[in-house]
């Protein structure tokens, strides 16, 4: 079965550079979520999109932006990178949360971003 695809798997950037992470949801899933997991920390919700519109926002820095495109893939753009941005970035997709089930909520394998 198709899973959530994230690219790249690994990314090394220097401070103050920009990075773009991509997420391709499971086909027919209409909602995409982004999470950040720092070293030794739990995944923290960043932002989500439903039908190409932002549906919720968490602790996402102003230096980051994201969008969902017409084919439902999503991109997380990170500018003015800082050392503290080094983390695993997970994308998940689902059918719109109905409050009574998972509706296929599935995580990708993540992108490991290292800022040097």
């Amino acid at each position: 079965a198709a899973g959530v695809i994230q690219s790249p798997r690994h990314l090394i950037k220097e401070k103050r550079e920009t990075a773009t992470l991509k997420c391709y949801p499971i086909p027919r899933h209409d909602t995409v979520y982004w999470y950040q997991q720092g070293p030794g920390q739990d995944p923290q919700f960043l932002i989500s999109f439903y039908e190409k519109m932002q549906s919720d926002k968490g602790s996402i820095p102003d230096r980051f932006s994201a969008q969902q495109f017409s084919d439902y893939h999503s991109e997380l753009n990170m500018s003015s990178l800082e050392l503290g941005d080094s983390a695993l970035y997970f994308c998940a997709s689902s059918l719109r949360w109905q409050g009574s089930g998972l509706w296929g909520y599935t995580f990708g394998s993540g992108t490991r971003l290292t800022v040097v």
Partner: protein
Amino acid sequence: DQQVKQNSPSLSVQEGRISILNCDYTNSMFDYFLWYKKYPAEGPTFLISISSIKDKNEDGRFTVFLNKSAKHLSLHIVPSQPGDSAVYFCAVHGSGNTGKLIFGQGTTLQVKP
């Protein structure tokens, strides 16, 4: 302010025995609770979930118990197998209807042969 807490960073059990992983939460409005398993360099993999209207859900070797009055849930794995060794995250569905999950800090389970 940690809304979901897993107070045991690690747990070690013998193969064949029961593993019990615990999770506490602060907000009584949380309505859906999930357990994820995570291997290094991989994304979290869904294990089992429970709605706030239930107090127990079972799926094979995995059972989740929910005690709403104590704002506590636990995951029981029995019998434990070496392949169960991983980091286990408790997650809750936050308020609203956006699907945002709030994770605990994780518990590293080691099952010894």
